[in-house]
């Protein structure tokens, strides 16, 4: 057992899993291109909605955001949402059908394996989504306000992704307790859409809901990086990173505790 734990901590093997996943995704470029059409469709609809809204309001900026900023914000938010990890599905299936047993006796950690594999998939999906979304938004409203903050935005996107991974994995682990987790997935996904700021920038929400949303992890996963992209500043980046690290620590510890407790109550029958 100690040997297995030592083996499962070697970071090189998780990097290999990540690389394999990247290669897997790149093996089907047509699939990737077709998937990227989804963001094109969403951005086109958002453009119709927000152009009409800005025209109707007769204002250049709504809650401090111009149409250009709103569209670029929505593009980043949508790209993050469409590339979100969904470990809940694989984990809950593995728990329910008992296939988790096959993973547990392998020389790697089940949860780190999921993390590496999904991160590999994420890197490719986000790249294609940003590319396709960026092109269509550029054509519709012109270039983004600032491009120099992109490296900082990428850092915050990865931290936000890790928070989402922990939350979704926690939902998957709830299969140890309940039969069906899809209802939790739907509700979580709607929290991301609304309180994460995918459907509408949080700035447009009523002040009381803005305050609540900004304190929750969903905003740190999506709103934070997207808002940083359109109005970058070192202060905003620092505050965002601090918040992300705090949520990541909290969610990470919770995940570890639930995972260990789940394994302790795991019962596998038959062979």
């Amino acid at each position: 057992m100690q040997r297995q734990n030592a083996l499962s901590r070697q970071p090189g093997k998780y990097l290999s899993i990540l690389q394999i996943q990247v290669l897997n995704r790149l093996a089907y470029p047509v699939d990737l291109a077709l998937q990227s059409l989804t963001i094109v469709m969403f951005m086109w609809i958002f453009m119709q909605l927000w152009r009409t809204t800005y025209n109707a309001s007769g204002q250049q900026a709504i809650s401090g955001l111009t149409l250009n900023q709103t569209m670029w914000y929505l593009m980043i938010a949508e790209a993050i949402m469409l590339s979100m990890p969904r470990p809940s599905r694989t984990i809950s299936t593995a728990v329910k059908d008992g296939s988790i047993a096959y993973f547990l006796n392998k020389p790697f950690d089940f949860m780190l394996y999921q993390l590496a594999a999904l991160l590999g998939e994420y890197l490719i999906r986000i790249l294609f989504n940003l590319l396709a979304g960026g092109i269509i938004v550029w054509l519709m409203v012109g270039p983004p306000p600032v491009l120099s903050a992109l490296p900082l935005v990428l850092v915050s996107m990865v931290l936000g992704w890790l928070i989402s991974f922990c939350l979704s994995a926690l939902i998957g682990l709830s299969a140890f307790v309940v039969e069906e987790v899809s209802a939790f997935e739907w509700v979580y996904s709607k929290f991301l859409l609304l309180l994460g700021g995918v459907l509408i920038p949080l700035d447009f929400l009523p002040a009381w809901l803005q305050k609540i949303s900004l304190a929750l992890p969903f905003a740190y996963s999506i709103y934070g990086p997207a808002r940083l992209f359109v109005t970058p500043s070192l202060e905003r980046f620092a505050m965002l990173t601090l918040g992300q690290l705090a949520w990541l620590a909290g969610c990470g510890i919770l995940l570890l505790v639930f995972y260990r407790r789940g394994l302790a109550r795991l019962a596998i029958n038959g062979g």
Partner: protein
Amino acid sequence: MKYLNRLDANLRFLGALWNANLLSAMEYRAAFLTQAIGMIINDAMYFIFWIFFFNKFKMINGWEMQDMILLFGLLAAGLGLARFLFGNTGNLADMITHGGLDYYLALPKPVLLHILASRSDFSALGDFLFGIFCFFFSGNLSLDAFGRYLVGLLFSALIFITFMVLVQSLAFYTGSAQMLSGQASSAIMTFATYPITLFDGTSKFILFTILPAAFIGSVPAEFVRTASWLSLLEMLGAAVLLTTLAGWAFQRGLKRYESGSAVQTQVL
């Protein structure tokens, strides 16, 4: 008389399938209820976006909050009904690709009807109930309006099912159409949830033809709101055309169907 007898037999067959699906759901009551209630919460949370939107912006190209509530009432109930009663609507391409039609072809029942109705999506009942709930808050509270609402949601369900069958029948020719099916389903549902008045001429043309999202949302909503004969005729025309095309494409494609001779267990 012969056609009436056949219709009667098919309706009784459908009734038996739905009854069996319901009994199967009752075997897993907790999962069934969790999914249905989860879907109601899911729909309600999505709708909150529009509540905040119209709270801030009041009216968009003539559309107000009440119009959105009615649109959601029709869409959620129509698509919920389609997925609850004909739960395999979204799985057809996958079944064609993986040789899943063998079982149905061996039985003396209408193949397409049998495939579509042999499964129920339990979560869709949540959609259906949420849709009905929305209708009662849409400001159209009269018996006439409720009658039109029922007609509208039936057309919405029929047009959605036939569009999905038409798109997925491509799997007979291309070998795999799962990706296209997913995109088509996502596109028609997404476009249908936005007011039609947002879109310009070219976009509207697409939403009334290639991607008939207008016929599952905005047109039925217009029919409920104004009792317009034109809207009814538009829905009827789209339903007849799509039903004919879907039936033709499926039957024609079926001649090209190749089985993988996979051993399968099938209950319904």
